């Protein structure tokens, strides 16, 4: 019998305490941010879309190797001798033309593993997170600054240079063989 009344009393008492808490919360200001008008303050280390500064990129492929999902595709072409590509901002000499540097943001898992191995700190994460696209192909970002004709030209130069070098090496070899024959 005592339990009966204790149950009733307990139920009513805890219900009233609960009601008091929710009533108090009616007057607490809301924590909602009205999104498109107010944007959240992102901290400085926030990890969102990547950006590559092509002036500093030496084409070393470290970031592509570090990526766990293989979303970075890099293709380089060696520069021919008279060309001077200049130096990066921290003093490294650039030896390669980067002809393809694609990052597929649909695959990227925003883990930041590509940022650490870069020797010139040219790839880093920005705070841009509003880059939704309707077609998935539009998420493949291409960072190279050379136009298609320039790329074709650099590749041509390189193949020509290699061909010349091979021809020269072949000529030198035959000349040497002839020399050794004559000397014999």
């Amino acid at each position: 019998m005592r339990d009966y009344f204790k149950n009733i009393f307990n139920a009513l008492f805890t219900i009233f305490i609960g009601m008091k808490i929710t009533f108090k919360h009616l007057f607490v200001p809301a924590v909602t941010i009205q999104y498109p008008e107010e944007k959240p303050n992102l901290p400085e280390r926030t990890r969102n879309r990547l950006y590559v500064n092509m002036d500093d990129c030496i084409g070393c492929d470290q970031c592509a190797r570090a990526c766990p999902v293989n979303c970075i595709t890099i293709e380089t072409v060696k520069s021919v001798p008279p060309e001077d590509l200049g130096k990066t901002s921290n003093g490294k000499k650039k030896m390669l033309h980067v002809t393809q540097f694609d990052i597929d943001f649909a695959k990227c898992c925003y883990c930041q593993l590509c940022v650490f191995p870069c020797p010139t700190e040219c790839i880093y994460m920005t705070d841009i997170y509003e880059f939704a696209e309707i077609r998935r192909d539009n998420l493949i970002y291409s960072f190279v600054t050379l136009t298609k004709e320039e790329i074709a030209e650099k590749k041509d130069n390189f193949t020509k240079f290699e061909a010349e070098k091979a021809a020269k090496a072949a000529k030198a070899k035959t000349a040497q063989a002839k020399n050794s024959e004559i000397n014999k």
Partner: protein
Amino acid sequence: MIYEFLYNIIGSHIIASIISAVFPLMFLVPFALFAVYLERKVSGHMQDRLGPMRVGWHGWLQTVADIIKLVQKEDITASATDKKLFNFAPVLVFAGSYAAFAAIPFTSIYIGSNIDLGILYIVAVSSFVVAGILMAGWASNNKYSLLGAMRSAAQIISYEIPTVLVILSIIVISGTLNLMTLSEQQSSSIYNWMIFGGAVVGWKKFVLIPFLMIGFLVIYISSLAEVNRTPFDIPEAESELVSGYHTEYSGMKFAMFFLAEYANMFAVSAVVVALFLGGYQSPFGYIGNSIGLVWLIPFEQFFWFAAKGIFFVFVQMWLRWTLPRLRVDQLMVVCWKYLIPISFVNLVIIALIMVL
């Protein structure tokens, strides 16, 4: 009343009665839209968030947008259902809640129909809702809907008993079933409201007060169960296994169920207010009286009635967002082992006091 007034102007029984019957509907539909918006805003602020904010200023047009969306939705009917019952069920549920408004006094000159059996009529008519729910559950041809409908029917039927017992105890004090007369008896000051003992003279008034307060609590809790609100919302709970008796409905029929729910909420709050808190009486005189504009009084009464009704609807929402849900067998235990004995003992004691 309004009916005679309109008859005198228009001269035709039919048109006068139609207009007089549509008055509560004109109150009810905007109220339902307002109640849905109020619920979302109240729940938002209790949870430290904002609720609807985009449609209209601070979202007050949100319900209108929802109704437009529901109206233009495709009316999906499953093939193996019993079509006549399926289509008729929402109508019955809505009719049951709406018909209760015929006997509720909004002001001292307006009542839908001034029958002497006011309260009994209201209790009887709100049992239509049970039939409607059972039809909805059965005609959906879905065993989970049927299970939910059975539970809901059991819940509503069991919780009508404490309601009626408390109403009986009020009738013992006031002597009439007519809600209009009951409201008139609680006139002239807040001291005369039924919850504070009613218009009884002498020592009996003070002895009655605790028992009437208990009666008020009992009827409020059973009215929560009548409308399927938390903590008694097993039939419409989505996180339980069954999804309730209105799963298979879409579009306008679903909107009818929802409208009926909010109409029902107001109907039961209105009954509680009329019984215990003086109906349309104001707690302290009428401004119309003190200024001298007597025609202002009905509007004031309507304002007080609506304010008290909306306050209790707000308390129902407050409870919904605070409490967890009861399981079905615990719900039955609360009714049969706690509420019914308490209300029965209450009735006997009040009757004894009045007789002495």
